[in-house]
């Protein structure tokens, strides 16, 4: 169990640290690579939750697909790698104040609430269950998600098309 805890903290710290880097890096390429670390660490957390299928999907879709696409996009865009992007922070003090405020509040409730914790289930096969749920209980969200994707596709095609 101790290994489990250690692993959890490793992934958690990795996720948070790289996320910080994504936000604060001044170079887009660096940001993109840092994002890789974040997504990977989150996949690790899924594994620890026995959600193996989601973990693999996370890696395949986000890391293998979306992130690579992003890096390609960045690299193919001329000179974007060299631009020193504007990351000046406005309202530093109020922002820090209120973000800290909301963090404190959230931490406070995390520790004080009596959560509805389900007993841990050991190594069940998840793929077939997910498949069943997708076609029964979650059929509608599944289908509506495809509409959302269709809209997003139409939208991006519309923006990408050459202006006459």
């Amino acid at each position, binding site marked *: 169990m101790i290994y489990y805890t250690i692993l959890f903290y490793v992934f958690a710290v990795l996720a948070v640290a790289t996320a910080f880097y994504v936000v604060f890096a001044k170079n887009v390429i660096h940001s993109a690579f840092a994002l890789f670390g974040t997504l990977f660490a989150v996949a690790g957390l899924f594994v620890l939750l026995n959600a193996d299928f989601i973990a693999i999907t996370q890696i395949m879709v986000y890391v293998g697909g979306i992130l690579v696409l992003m890096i390609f996009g960045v690299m193919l865009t001329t000179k974007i790698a060299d631009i020193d992007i504007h990351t000046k922070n406005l309202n530093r003090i109020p922002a820090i104040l209120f973000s800290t405020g909301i963090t404190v509040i959230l931490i406070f409730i995390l520790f004080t609430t009596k959560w509805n914790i389900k007993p841990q289930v050991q190594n069940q096969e998840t793929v077939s269950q997910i498949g069943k749920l997708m076609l029964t209980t979650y059929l509608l969200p599944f289908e509506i998600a495809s509409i959302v994707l269709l809209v997003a596709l139409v*939208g991006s095609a519309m923006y990408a098309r050459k202006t006459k």
Partner: protein
Amino acid sequence: MEQTIISLKNFIPECVLIVTILVCLLADLIVRKKSAVVAVIGIAGLFVSGWFVIGQFGVKESVFFGMVVIDPYSVFFKLLFIVSTVFIILFSLASKEIKDSTHTNEHVYLMISLTLGANLMASSVNMLMMYLALETVSITSYVLAGYMKKSKRSSEAAMKYVIYGAASSGIMIYAMSLLYGYTGSMNIFEISSILSKMGGTNPMLVIVMVMILAGFGYKISSVPFHFWTPDVYEGAPIPVTGFLAVTSSAAGFAVLIRFFSVTFLKSTTMLNGSLQIIDGIRWTEIIIVLSVASMIIGNFVAVWQMSFKRLLAYSSIAQGGYIMLGLVVANQQGLTAIFVYLVAYMIMNLGAFYALIMISNKLNSDDINDMKGFAYRAPAVAVGMGIFMFALSGIPATVGFVGKFYLFSALIESNMIWLALVGMMNSVVSLFFYIKVLKYMFLSKPDEENSGKIYYGIAGYVLLFILVIPTLLLGIYFGPIVRFAEMSAVMFGLK
């Protein structure tokens, strides 16, 4: 399997919308240029869907494994959305901004997708479904807001909207995950009964509520989640702005009202009319705060706006505040008042936006300064705009007054007289800026160089007339909409 088929039978209106989207998309690929054909197909699809929605009146059914319900409440909203989408598509045919954009006919099926999302928002009873429906509406709105690709303002609006929307829905879904963690369910009826059983106060629930409000509040442009509104309204093409003001925010109300009145009211007392808030969750107080803030900020800031679109943005922030007043009452009467107000709001806002489209088509501007003496150049349009402005400010004999009247009387019957007073004082303030527009149009002479008469095609006048008639008629004879609202307000008895 069997349940899926039964569910599909109750899902025909949405299926029709999906088919319409696809047919429009294909038609667009075939036509490949600007054409009214796609819009006609879209409108036809909306009519068919609307016909099926009317058929659902009186049905009470939970479909797709407790994801959505068909009840009078959702039917009311679906009809509202479908009607307003028909109008908005007609507006987009008239709008020069849309005509001048480089795209072909994407806006038609994007708008129908938004309607689909809005319909789902009105009927979802599951947090997952609510979120997904909200995202459908949001993503479509982002695309539509940036529809004028050549305009920097439009692109900027879309970008701001995306960032703001992402942040807000991020806050909301985090809170939803907390609620799920606490109750172990995503169905709001189940959550309600679990919370009712638990009893005792819990600060966590208050926090969850406020954070969920951030997500819904941004859809309805409630203060302090309203910041995107003026910028996006200003940047987006006017038909889209109108669409956001009417459909998108009404959908926000649909989901907000259902979520709060189901989740945080005691499920046992819901059927006999007297509603009881679950102990320790004083959500009506939060709504009061947001509502008063929205009215005050919306109305006061609007006074100084010289851009008509921004003015309407603040006006719809304030109108959202009025609608929330009805939610504070949290009973059948309050809900009826909200429904009446929503119908009024739809009619007069559609009218105002259409009149604005007519004006800015010819002036190429939405600056109120440029509308000096417009009444001398196009009297019919100016008078139409005048009527809509009076309606928005709630002057009697217009539909706007009816809406306000029902809201305030619901408040007074629940002994919340001071809130009604705040609302009334705000409607006095709102008069300043609504009248200001008219002052420019009617009481100042047009500049020398552009004082020529402006003419529109007959179709333009007909559409304006179609919107003016209900604004006035329903202001005097409003029995029908009130009865419709009363029938639709029967709700939430369904598990």
